[in-house]
């Protein structure tokens, strides 16, 4: 029973944190809320019997990826002016249209979900099983994922290097 209660608490935290993350004007604040949300989701993973996924969620998502964000935000050096700009953009009238659309989509999703029955399985799926199927039937997907990561690596290197070469370093040099 405790676990069920834990699930609902985690779910609530995830949702609230996400909403807050989406509405912050300050990028770092938003990022912190997002990390909270990710941690909450990691808790849910753990609760529904996917400990490996929970671990990855914390290590890679909340850890590595979010740190990237932090670095970039730091590099951009947005400051107070950026916050005001954000607040100015977040006027209520902008919300109406998108909110309507999203509500529609959500209702449709609800309609579809409503027909799903039954609880999640009682047995947890171990890292070993995941590993076996990754390098068994899904080996091709793993290869593709590796290619994707390589492409991402090359791409980000290419984009980032120019920024540092021409703009970042020179400017810093001048200063």
């Amino acid at each position, binding site marked *: 029973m405790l676990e*069920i209660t834990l*699930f609902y608490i985690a779910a609530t935290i995830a*949702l609230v944190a*996400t*909403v807050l*993350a*989406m509405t912050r004007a300050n*990028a770092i604040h938003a*990022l912190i809320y997002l990390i909270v*949300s*990710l941690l909450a*989701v990691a808790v*849910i*993973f753990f*609760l*529904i*019997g*996917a400990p490996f*996924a929970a671990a*990855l969620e914390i290590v890679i*998502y909340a850890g590595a*990826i979010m740190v990237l*964000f932090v670095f*970039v935000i730091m590099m*951009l050096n947005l400051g107070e002016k*950026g916050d005001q700009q954000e607040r100015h*953009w977040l006027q209520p009238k902008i*919300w109406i*249209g*998108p*909110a309507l659309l*999203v509500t529609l*989509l*959500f209702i449709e*999703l*609800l309609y579809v*979900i409503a027909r*799903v*029955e*039954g*609880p*999640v*399985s009682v047995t*947890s*799926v171990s890292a070993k*099983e*995941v590993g076996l199927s990754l390098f068994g039937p899904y080996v091709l*997907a793993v290869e593709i*994922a*590796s290619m994707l*990561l390589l*492409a*991402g*690596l090359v*791409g*980000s290197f290419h*984009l*980032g290097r120019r*920024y540092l070469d021409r*703009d970042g370093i020179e400017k810093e040099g001048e200063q």
Partner: protein
Amino acid sequence: MEGLNVPLNHILLVSSLLFAIGMLGLMIRRNIIFILMSLEVMLNSAALAFVAAGAHWGQPDGQVVFMLILTVAAAEVAVGLGLVLQVQKRFKTLDMDHANRMRG
């Protein structure tokens, strides 16, 4: 460790709510950083749905797909943030409405 009897559709409900919030954020934010964050939320919600479904059937496939999503998210963020830097350099702003050269 024992699993628990959370109804599957509750988890899916959470997942779709997260997705909806992410999408809402995508639509209302102009700052490219927030847009990328919203994308992360959406990807994450999809991952949640996959893992939940995998748990429902007691199969590892859900988590496998989760890992694939993870790689996609990592690559996307890497390239996306690289683009953020470029946008900042070229347009001197992060407002995506200014980067409208694709206007028809």
